[in-house]
């Protein structure tokens, strides 16, 4: 109930409109309810043979119809815009909240689950607040007003013929509660079938090369079979509830015929009242069902609302003091003081007691096995995470004491698998500076040139305006990386973070990327997560990490002397390097 009240809170900015549409709905319903009553009067006047009154009453019905028309149009327009407004508010609130949460939150949540909150749950809530609530109120109003009119006509018969109403509402609410999840479950099964199809199309070579068509067909048959079963569950619910909900009010009609008919014959009821009763009950068929269904909707919306509030109530863990100063000017020196980092819910530290001083302008290679803490270390610099203990300083100030966006715009990262947005190449490069039209094409082109990306961009179908990313043209790993390097150029950061695990690039591209990197690194403090000796060679100093601890720190020559681990990495990790030194003819071609 508390959740329900909080949900209604979303309507608060639209108080006036909500009140207006309630008033309009009530008046329109009064018009609706008046029509059968007037019809009843007409029947009575017809029986009495009074044609003048008949004309007058018919005109009254027409007037009621016109009033209802005007009121309903107004009500629908107001309520419609309120529901769209609520929808927009709700969506932006959730989105804004998500953007404000710390990275650690996203690490623990699957994107799919968050999407489900932001789409399925949000939809349940907005359907209810937008339409369900209005349907509910309107249906309830119709039933109440019609019931009042029926009681005024004949309380006894009203009582009898209204008996089915609560049952219909109850059954319809049950259906509303059970039917919808069943349909969602069907959607889930359809998604499974789709996934199965996707896999078989993407993996067609594997299937064919192992001649596994039969087995895959069986698997697909199973998935389709599960879809059928679930669809039948949904069909059975529909087949049971729909006719049942339709049947119950018929009993009320039968009661009117049976008892009302006798009353008219007895002379204790007029034929017009009888006809009015009959019409009222026909009129209530829709609202009864609708009230039930919207009650079911309300229950689901409350459940979804609870999940949504759980998300909205989650306060961001990385917060900055209000009025924190911007990062002071500097050239990008970095210091880690006894830093320990343990991710929320993790059983061991990702980094333990790491202390490191990097003077401005130096290039540091981070070396270590997967999971040794390389990525965690660099994630601390733009404050994607806060250390569990210790402090991180950039240009002499603790990163927690400065305004985050000023810190982050001083740092740029080029990932091994750079993420590009579904936007033009231009927008993706200009991203660092607010994107789009704010950055002139010349600047973007210049950055792309320096990143060795200008040539291939020129060959794209629409050059810099080619749409890339998930819903655009797919760029190769090497191309994506160069776009990301161009993005970093344009950001003009003090500190650069690189991951050199380039994938699938041929020799000439490799050379180009290296040249681009050399260019972008000049004059900046650079951290390179290094996967090969050739990159390590670019570095001034090397940091070897092992299980989250700083195992060694020094130049290549120094480390070869003091670190067994480093020696092993150099020896084992780069077999190509090893054989190059074995045969004279090869030494010759390698230019060694």
């Amino acid at each position, binding site marked *: 109930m508390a959740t329900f009240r909080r949900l209604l809170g979303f309507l608060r900015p639209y108080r006036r409109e909500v009140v207006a549409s309630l008033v309009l709905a009530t008046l329109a319903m009064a018009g609706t309810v008046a029509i059968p009553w007037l019809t009843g009067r007409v029947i009575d006047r017809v029986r009495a043979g009074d044609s003048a009154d008949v004309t007058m009453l018919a005109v009254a019905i027409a007037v009621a119809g016109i009033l209802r028309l005007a009121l309903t149009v107004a009500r629908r327009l107001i309520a419609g815009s309120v529901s769209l407004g609520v929808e927009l508010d709700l969506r932006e609130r959730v989105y804004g909240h998500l953007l404000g949460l710390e990275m650690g939150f996203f690490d623990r949540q699957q994107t799919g689950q968050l999407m489900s909150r932001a789409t399925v749950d949000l939809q349940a809530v907005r359907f209810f607040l937008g339409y369900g609530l209005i349907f509910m109120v309107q249906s309830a109003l119709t039933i109440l007003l019609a019931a009042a009119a029926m009681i005024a006509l004949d309380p006894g018969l009203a009582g009898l013929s209204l008996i089915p109403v609560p049952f219909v509402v109850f059954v319809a609410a049950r259906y509303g509660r059970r039917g919808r999840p069943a349909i969602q479950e069907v959607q889930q099964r359809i998604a499974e079938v789709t996934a199965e199809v996707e*896999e078989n199309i993407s993996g067609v070579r594997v299937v064919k090369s192992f001649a596994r068509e039969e087995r895959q067909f069986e698997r697909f048959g199973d998935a389709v079979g599960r879809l059928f079963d679930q669809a039948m569950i949904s069909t059975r619910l529909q087949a049971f509830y729909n*006719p049942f909900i339709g*049947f119950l009010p018929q009993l009320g009609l039968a009661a009117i015929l049976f008892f009302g008919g006798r009353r008219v014959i007895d002379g204790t009821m007029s034929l017009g009242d009888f006809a009015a009763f009959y019409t009222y009950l026909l009129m209530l068929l829709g609202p009864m069902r609708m009230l039930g269904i919207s009650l079911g909707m309300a229950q689901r919306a409350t459940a979804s609302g609870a999940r949504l509030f759980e998300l909205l109530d989650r306060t961001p863990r990385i917060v900055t003091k209000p009025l924190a100063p911007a990062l002071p000017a500097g050239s990008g020196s970095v210091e880690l003081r006894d830093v320990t980092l343990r991710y929320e819910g993790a059983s061991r530290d990702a980094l333990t007691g790491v202390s490191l001083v990097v003077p401005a302008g130096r290039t540091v290679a981070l070396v270590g096995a997967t999971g040794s803490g390389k990525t965690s270390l660099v994630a601390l610099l733009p404050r994607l995470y806060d250390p569990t203990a210790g402090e991180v300083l950039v240009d002499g100030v603790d990163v927690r004491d400065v305004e985050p966006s000023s810190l982050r715009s001083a740092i740029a990262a080029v990932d091994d698998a750079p993420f590009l947005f579904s936007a033009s190449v231009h927008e993706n490069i200009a991203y660092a500076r607010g994107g789009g039209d704010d950055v002139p094409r010349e600047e973007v082109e210049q950055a792309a040139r320096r990143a060795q990306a200008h040539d291939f961009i020129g060959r794209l179908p629409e050059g810099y305006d080619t749409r890339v990313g998930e819903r655009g043209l797919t760029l190769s790993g090497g191309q994506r990386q160069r776009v990301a390097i161009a993005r970093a150029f344009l950001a003009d950061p003090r500190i650069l973070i690189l991951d050199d695990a380039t994938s699938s690039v041929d020799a000439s591209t490799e050379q180009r990327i290296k040249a681009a990197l050399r260019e972008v690194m000049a004059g900046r403090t650079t951290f390179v997560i290094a996967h090969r000796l050739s990159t390590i060679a670019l570095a001034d100093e090397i940091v070897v990490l092992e299980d989250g601890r700083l195992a060694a720190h020094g130049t290549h020559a120094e480390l070869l002397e003091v670190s067994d681990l480093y020696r092993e990495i150099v020896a084992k990790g780069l077999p190509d390097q090893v054989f190059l030194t074995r045969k004279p003819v090869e030494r010759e071609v390698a230019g060694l």
Partner: protein
Amino acid sequence: MSTGEAKRTETRLEDVRRRLRGTSGRGRKLKGLIALLRPYRSRVAAMFVALVLGTAASLAPAPLAKHAIDAGIVPGDVSTVNWVVVAFVISALIVWGATFAQTYLTGWVGQRALQDLRLQIFRHLQSMPVGFYERRPAGVLISRMTNDVEALNSLVTDSVVTLFQASLTLLGTIAILLVFDVELALITFCILPVMALGSLAFRIASADAYKRTRETIGAITGYLQESLSGIRVVRSFAQEPRHRRRFHALNDDNRDANMKTVYLNAGYFPAVEFVSALATVAILLIGGKQAIDGQLEIGVLVGFIAALNGFFDPIGQLSQLYTTYQAGMAALDKIFELLDEESDLVEAEDAIELDRLRGEIRFEDVTFAYSTADGTKLALADVDLVVPPGQTVALVGATGAGKSTFAKLLARFYDPTEGRILVDGVDLRDVRASSLRSQMGIVPQEAFLFSGTVEENIGFGRPEATHEEVVAAAEAVGADGFIAALPDGFDTEVGERGVQLSAGQRQLLAFARALIADPRILILDEATSNVDLHSEGKIEEGMRRLLAGRTAVIIAHRLSTIRQAGRIIVLDGGRISEQGAHDELMEARGAYWALYRDWAEQAAA
């Protein structure tokens, strides 16, 4: 699926396929639909009986009310009233039962027919050669199976029923009104064209508007998804405010599109109510006068008003059909187009079942040209080559030199344009595909894993393999170490919906998968991606184990692999430019020597 069930499904599909293919020309789509429903004709017949019965019974209340008034209440005959009430309850029970049966049967038949269609399309796709997939974006094929089948779903399950039910209701109501009173009925019918045209116009306009809202909401969902997947980049560049603005703009678009539907609905539905009120007024005015003059029984008035609903609802429903019908037919067109595609790699009736191969490969003057949108593109020319059993051949050359075409022809993803390819002396075109493929292992560059457990993925190479064999295969290629470190070991879910494995780990699983299939011939496209320093050595070791004792063709990218190959073939522009062992080629100082120098420089840079 059990074996018996699978067999029945197979026979049914065969029958449907024959019928679908047999149809052509005008009325094909209708015939196609009928072919899909044909296996379930008795149920379809029962559904129609229930539909007609239910619709007829649902028309009863209005005439019954009229009869109760005119024959019972007005003359004061209580027993007639009693009989009417009994008839009334009976008709309601019939509606209940018939609607239940009809809803259930429609759902059952519709879902079954769609299930058949899905299986049919899937089977058809499977029968297509790999070249077919390369010419079409995966999204289009997926959409045939999902969106298009769903569009048919609403046509088959909703529209057909609505069409018959609404038409019957409308016709029945018209008949009842005519029997009640011809003059009054004709006056009421004046509304028909107005309502029908108005409703149709409304449906067409709102179909457009709803399409816009679906598109805009799709854009919102897509943007949301992207913001979440790219949150790290958003955060790193501190671009949250910009995303918030863009999101707001998308939401505004959606609101504008939605507002159009609000306008349309606010106009249409109250107008229908109003027309219905006007009809009531007309009936009361004209009918009332007639009743006062004694030309009309008073029950007819009540009956008329009660029957009006049966008049308005079907018109609205029928107008709605228009859009679903169009969408469904368009979908059917696209599905037919797909099913009409013929495979260009057809297996001969008397194809040879291969025994266990020795593994000799022979290319005889093989030329291959891809057919592209504008003519053909030569990919391989006059390739002549014999690979003795057990030899490892490394294919090297620049991008586009013909390395992957070579591999694809050997795997018979395509047939050569000229010349022939023989395995153990038998032309690939004369061989039963399944007997060839089960002895030929293919390890693609990007190791594709299916969603399922690690064990299932390795066992994919030989489904009957025991757990021990799977473990042994994993150990042999050196994948056991990282598998043991996974949360559930061999039972860990991988693939799209499971744990994300690194490129190197996926590669090792692909090796194990190939090893367990124990192929005589191995085609391996080496991954170029740089894997973790420590995985590198493992992959090399795994590959050595995999190659032992088999004929292998490797599209090689690593110096170490190339050097260990028994023979190196250098391809240039689709032709073999050089071949021999590493040492020979280095001494020759030809194309290979030049290529090798580039690599070596790169590795040392």
